[in-house]
């Protein structure tokens, strides 16, 4: 018989890794932002300070370095439960997540003595053992597994191997902290951004009252725009709006404080060292300044396509040739700080005026102001927009002249008015299972165009269909598989899709000779048959027109 009271009395965790494991379980199982927010607020109310700092760090992408690689952990797991490696592989492809696979496989490993150390204890351990011998790592990992329940094993392994993709946005973290320490969200967002090390920063140092100016590198949160969902005419009087080109590079923030230059990407990655072109700007910009703009390659002030920027991203050593062929510039959009003063609350026209005063006298190819588009009417602006692709722009940004610089993605004052994507009709030929939320479902597809009697693959795409459509395609894949290569299925070429993409570039890595930018499935063309899809020649023509 079930004793009701006994069930209710099971005491919840109040500290330790268990508390964090419960948080992760709640966050990943709840489907509503408010519930997630509440889970975080509850967690921050009782968790130890050191653990809180790590939770902020982990959920904003600051993981400790990987202390143990997953191949070793896989070996140790196989040893413990005595199964062959191929069976681990089968399990992994069904679960779609390494840490979860381990936790499930090790579910019966007995809890010898539950230790329940804090989250910060384990992370400090990871940092310690990173440089140690394999045997020491193994001892620590295997013993830890033996002291944990399944949920703890999952988060423990996840902390080592990967990021927690559980649908918690930066915004949710910020709001939860704002509720916890009673400071406004925009201040919190600023405090937890930038260059801080969770191993040496205390909760008070991070969020306490005196915790601001010490870190000079700290960027402001970016103000992001939504795509306009109504007609532009609905924005009213054109005189109230400023129009700019929307450039296709990396959104970035320039900070010069204490005579030091910092370049941040929107993904909060510090990129200063990646672009030597920028070094000279430390001499040319005034001190105490923060600029918002686009990191983009340009020659003679004209932007180059994103594919050119890709030749520079991720390179440690940059050749002379690359510096010549893909020189990086900063196209400045906005002024956020001037003379160490936060300018975000001032209206756009005032910020813009000051920005022009500062930037225009600087004559250097590494920086230029992003021009304002003169336009008479919405109609004439629409005509200009049609030319976007010719100048390697993605379309137009519309900003209210009296707008302040907000935090995060907001409606109303700023809108992006992008050009329609390029599209091509093609047929699905390979399918592979997705990961995470889409594990066990075929959601990752490869597409081909026709070339005479042949089908030539040219892109993959994973997004754009509804859950229902994914289920239907998954069903089709399972019934129409021709061959199986590892996780990949060759599928009867029958389903036709329209693929939308933002750009096209020549590529010698792909059989088709082209690489697409942001490909996604825009429509399932149930009305079309395989012999009606586009050809390789069509793709090549697009490359000629847009691939410059």
């Amino acid at each position, binding site marked *: *018989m*079930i004793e*009701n009271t006994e*069930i*209710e009395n*099971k005491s919840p965790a109040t500290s330790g890794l268990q508390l964090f494991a419960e948080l992760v379980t709640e966050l*990943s*199982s*709840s*489907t509503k932002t408010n519930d997630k927010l509440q889970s975080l607020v509850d967690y921050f109310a009782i968790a130890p300070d050191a653990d809180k700092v790590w939770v902020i760090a982990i959920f904003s992408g600051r993981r400790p370095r990987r202390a143990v690689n997953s191949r070793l952990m896989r070996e140790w797991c196989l040893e413990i*439960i005595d*199964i*062959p490696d*191929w*069976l681990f592989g*089968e*399990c992994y492809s*069904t*679960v*779609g*997540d390494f840490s*979860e*696979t381990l936790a*499930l*496989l090790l*579910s*019966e490993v007995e809890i010898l003595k539950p230790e329940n150390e804090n989250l910060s204890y384990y992370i400090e351990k990871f940092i310690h053992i990173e440089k140690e011998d394999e045997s020491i790592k193994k001892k620590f990992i295997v013993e830890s597994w033996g002291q944990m329940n399944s949920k703890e094993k999952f988060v423990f392994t996840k902390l080592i191997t990967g990021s927690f993709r559980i649908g918690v946005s930066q915004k949710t973290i910020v709001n939860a902290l704002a509720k916890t320490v009673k400071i406004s969200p925009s201040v919190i967002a600023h405090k937890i951004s930038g260059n801080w090390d969770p191993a040496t920063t205390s909760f008070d140092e991070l969020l306490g009252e005196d915790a601001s100016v010490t870190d000079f590198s700290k960027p402001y949160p970016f103000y992001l725009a939504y795509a306009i969902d109504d007609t532009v005419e609905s924005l009213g009087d054109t005189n109230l709006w400023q129009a700019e080109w929307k450039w296709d590079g990396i959104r970035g923030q320039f900070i010069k404080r204490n005579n030091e230059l910092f370049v941040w990407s929107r993904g909060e990655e510090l990129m200063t060292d990646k672009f030597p072109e920028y070094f000279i700007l430390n001499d040319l910009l005034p001190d105490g300044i923060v600029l918002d703009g686009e990191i983009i390659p340009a020659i003679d002030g004209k932007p180059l396509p994103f594919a050119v920027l890709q030749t520079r991203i991720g390179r440690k050593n940059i050749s002379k040739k690359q510096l010549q062929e893909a020189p990086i510039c900063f196209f400045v959009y906005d002024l956020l700080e001037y003379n160490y003063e936060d300018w975000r609350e001032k209206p756009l026209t005032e910020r813009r005026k000051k920005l022009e005063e500062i930037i225009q006298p600087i004559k250097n190819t590494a920086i230029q102001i992003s021009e304002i588009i003169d336009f008479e009417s919405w109609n004439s602006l629409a005509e200009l927009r049609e030319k976007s692709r010719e100048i390697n722009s993605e379309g137009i940004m519309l900003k209210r002249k009296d707008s302040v610089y907000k935090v995060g993605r907001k409606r109303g004052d700023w809108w992006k008015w992008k050009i329609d994507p390029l599209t091509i009709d093609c047929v699905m030929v390979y399918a592979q299972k997705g*990961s*995470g*939320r*889409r*594990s*066990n*479902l075929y959601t990752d597809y490869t597409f081909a165009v026709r070339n005479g009697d042949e089908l030539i693959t040219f892109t993959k795409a994973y997004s754009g269909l509804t*859950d229902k459509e994914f*289920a239907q395609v998954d*069903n089709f894949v*399972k*019934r129409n*598989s021709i061959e*199986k290569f590892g996780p990949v299925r060759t599928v009867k070429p029958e389903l036709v899709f329209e693929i939308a993409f933002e750009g096209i570039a020549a590529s010698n890595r792909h059989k088709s000779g082209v690489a697409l930018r942001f490909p996604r499935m825009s429509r399932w063309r149930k009305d079309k048959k395989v012999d009606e899809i586009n050809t390789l020649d069509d793709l090549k023509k697009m490359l000629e027109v847009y691939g410059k």
Partner: protein
Amino acid sequence: MPQLITFKDKGLFCEAGNFYIDPWKPVDRAVITHGHSDHARFGNKYYLCHRFTKPILQLRLGDNNYQTTDWNETINMNGVKVSFHPAGHIIGSSQIRVEYNNEVWVVSGDYKTENDGISGEFEPVKCNAFITESTFGLPIYKWKPQQEIYDDIIRWINKNKENGKTSILITYSLGKAQRVLQALKETTQTIFAHGAIFNMQQTLIDAGFDLKPVVRITPETPKELLKETVVIAPPGAEGTSWMKKFHPYSIGVCSGWMQVRGNARRRNVDGGFALSDHADWNSLLATVKETGAERVFVTHGFQAAFSRYLNEKNIAIGAEVKTQFGDEDESADSPLEIKNEESESV
């Protein structure tokens, strides 16, 4: 000598006895393991089933030529000895033992080894050849004891009540629904149910099973009456306008597939309970060993992985059997089962 049971277009066929087991196309003589619709189909001229299965078939397939039997009774079919043995999967579910010329084959149907108190206690049957399901034939599937899962469900229901929410539990109408209702009968007085659940529950009660009655939800059921209650609904009701009536609510799904987080997240449910009516990895292995079978045919699930493991570990000579439903390692969420709300699918 031909195999005693062969794998034909219409299903598992015993030539010596001239009958099929769970055929998927109409045949003259069908022996039925249990009442789920992917095992018991329309159109057969003659059905042999366990006496508990008959009311289920009558509800679903209408009047037919049914013959019933009890567990451990031997029936002679063309000189072949046929007997039924409890499979523990759902009410009436049985393994089929077939004996001819001193050779014994057993078809497991679907089974679970943990005794749920209503489906009969699974008995391993000694045989030469064993045809086993493998729906959850990977070592990631190891079930917690059912009482722990029931406790989780009750805790979830209590939490929903505290938050002013109705608890909607998604279960298949035959099998899981009876099991969950039985688990909740001590803690929840009145349980409401979708018509599909109600019909099955009532059919079984009318047939003499001591099960908890449920209250059928109709368009006339007042909304206030449903506040903070427990509602049992089949997967087909999920996401339909039928659910609006219960707002605010939480959805919990009871299925072995909930063992993997991605499945719960994909379905956008609030509570996923890995409660299964199928054998888990350990039970599949233990059962294969207990039957003493030299040959094991693996169907329905992760047959490639499970049979390969049996071979590599020298547990038996394992072979995978392809069904008409598509390729190996996927009958778990095969297209057939997605359409068919009775079996556990994604």
